[in-house]
């Protein structure tokens, strides 16, 4: 040992205290403290960083809830770009990959490799996604879903609407008519995915504000580095499953920057959409240019209106806001009615009995599309497992529940869907 240490000194190591056991041990401890300190500093800075991000609410002049809502309504932001973190947690059991919720909807389209916006939209109904948005006036919009080593982009430039899926190198093309008659087509198509942005979500929630809702300004917050007011919207109806909707409104521009929808049962927010970066400058013009790449498979969408009518639902509205679309009661399906109003509204429709065994499956699909739950099961059998038997004045049926939306499908093929408690559904069924 001693000889070895001597050897080291000769060999030019930085041993100044070699040979004295106590000093040597101390020096060793000091050296090992360096990596520990580096790791500690890193851990501390991560902790302090997140603490800084969550605290430090900005000081803003007081504002009443009415003034804030007016500010949102008046907001006229024509140009912006940014990143949005969008997470949903409907409380559905997570499915093995391959039969994901999105995959089921894709299969429903009956076309292999369909990259139409509607099919893609249902993928947003579960998990966490990063979206990037860019807007320049009413005619130029872009929305991309950032995926692992791939991206799904929806680009609108004038009357041209392109959807590009880089993972499969497929393009979906359609034209958005300029005239007013075609507005519904444009809504459902070109802006289908825009339903996921905090602005659209906030607008839908504020549209539902009425006597049945309590609205309050609840302090301030920093969102994407900007000062914002927090607006809390709470349904008064006891049977609603919606606990509270919180909207962070940019203090300068009145743009909603963050949207959180919490279930009454507590836990993680059901929907959480927030800008992580936002820029109110004009996005570069090339952002909205798109030419289909060489070799890409292009599907043209000429017959959109017909297809939408045939489906009996407007996908743009159905999927835009899981749950809330059902509340606002929007659908053109035959035999469709809305029971109750505002937050406690329940969608009711009938599934034709002649579908026989497939009735359940179709009902599930109907529930997903028209009810706005944004879910559709890969097959009826799998979905049946999630249901539980109930009986009441209406006879008996199956009740399917998520954290926000509950659905009752009676054995007669009557479907009741709403963001209300199970008891309210049973009471509403006749």
């Amino acid at each position, binding site marked *: 040992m001693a000889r070895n240490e001597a050897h080291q000194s000769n*060999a030019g190591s930085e041993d100044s205290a070699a040979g004295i056991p106590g000093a040597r041990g101390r020096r060793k401890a000091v050296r090992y403290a*360096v*990596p520990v300190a580096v790791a500690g500093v890193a851990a501390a800075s991560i902790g302090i960083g997140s603490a800084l991000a969550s605290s430090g609410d900005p000081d803003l002049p007081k504002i009443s809830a009415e003034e804030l809502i007016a500010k949102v309504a008046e907001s006229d932001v024509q140009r912006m770009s940014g*990143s949005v973190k969008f997470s949903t947690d409907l409380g559905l059991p997570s499915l093995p990959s391959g039969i994901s919720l999105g995959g089921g909807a894709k299969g429903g389209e009956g076309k292999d490799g369909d990259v139409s916006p509607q099919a893609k939209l249902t993928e947003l109904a579960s998990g966490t996604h990063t979206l990037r948005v860019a807007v320049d006036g009413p005619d130029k919009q872009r929305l991309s879903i*950032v995926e*692992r080593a791939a991206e799904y982009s929806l680009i609108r430039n004038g009357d041209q609407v392109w959807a590009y899926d*880089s993972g499969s190198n497929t393009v979906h093309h359609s034209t958005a008519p300029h005239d007013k008659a075609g507005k519904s087509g444009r809504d459902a198509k070109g802006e289908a995915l825009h339903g996921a942005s905090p602005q659209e979500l906030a607008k839908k929630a504020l549209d539902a504000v009425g006597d049945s809702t309590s609205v309050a300004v609840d302090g301030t917050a920093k969102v994407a580095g900007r000062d914002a007011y927090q607006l809390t919207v709470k349904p008064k109806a006891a049977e609603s499953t919606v606990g509270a909707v919180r909207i962070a409104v940019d203090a300068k521009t009145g743009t909603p920057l963050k949207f959180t929808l919490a279930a009454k049962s507590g836990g993680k927010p059901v929907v959480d959409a927030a800008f*992580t970066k936002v820029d109110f400058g004009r996005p570069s013009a090339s952002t909205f240019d798109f030419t289909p790449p060489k*070799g890409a498979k292009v599907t043209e969408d000429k017959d959109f209106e017909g297809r939408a009518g045939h489906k009996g639902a407007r996908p743009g509205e159905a999927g835009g806001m899981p749950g809330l679309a059902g509340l606002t009661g929007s659908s053109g399906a035959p035999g469709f009615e809305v029971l109750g109003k505002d937050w406690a509204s329940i969608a009711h429709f009938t599934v034709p009995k002649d579908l026989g065994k497939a009735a359940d499956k179709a009902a599930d699909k109907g529930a997903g599309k028209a009810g706005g739950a944004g879910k559709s099961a890969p097959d009826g059998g799998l979905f049946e497992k999630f249901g539980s038997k109930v009986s009441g004045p209406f006879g008996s049926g199956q009740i399917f529940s998520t954290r926000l939306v509950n659905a009752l499908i009676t054995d007669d093929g009557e479907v009741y869907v709403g963001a209300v408690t199970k008891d309210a559904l049973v009471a509403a069924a006749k």
Partner: protein
Amino acid sequence: MSRAERQAAPAPAAREAYPLRRLSLFRSEIGTVFRRWRTLALLGVLAAVPVLVGIAVKVETGDGGTVGHGGEGPAFLSQVTNNGLFLVFTSLAATLPFFLPMAVGVVAGDSLAGEAASGTLRYLLVAPVGRTRLLLAKLTSTLVFCLAATMVVAVSALAVGALLFPLGDITLLSGTTVSFGEGLLRALAVAGAVALSLAGIAALGLFVSTLTNSGIAAMATTVGLLITAQIVDQFPQLEAVQPYLFPHYWLSFADVLRQPVYWDQLLDNFRLQALYAAVFGSAAWARFTTKDVTA
């Protein structure tokens, strides 16, 4: 720099020789790494991957068919037939999860433990060079290998891609079309990001290498840690620890191909690699400068 040197060699001549000698240590270490047959074999295997991928894609699409239209296989595979430049990205995506880090793990694990095993480490220490500087030289040579290995894959892929497939303007992930020149620049940036992604495992391997006197044990441990981290990274239940695993953000190199470039994950990756390099680099220093070198 040793105490003896400080006292005995204040002469101007020695001071002038100093920077040269410092460089020569780094040069000789890099030479040692790249002269090994083992290293050349590793680089050869890495260069063969794009060739295999390119030929496979060419054969499969020879009759006008397409590959990966369902989005299966390594990232960017469906684009390769349209633009040879995408073979660079596909090859890097295919080699980054395992091949590249394994090669780095072998070189890093071998760096000190291999010298100790063959009995050459003490001769290295006989030279008037501080242990810290020797360690730095070893780390530098490993990092140079990271860059070289990545460039070998990228250049081989570019050559194969140019031979087998057309080249031209490329469409980025976001659907924006850019010129071939900018595409090449982005490919270079991607290769740089991939090389930096390997810094974490290089430092980890170097630290493991200071713990043992067996080169094989150090390589196996480093590669074992890599596999463990990759497996842990797959389980959704372990989400809480995943952002701190060194392979977690590896695929973020693809974010260079978005328009505009999506920096969040890229920067997360670089920060994480820097943290690993700092923690395990200093741990290796603490261990190596205090351990008894008997072999």
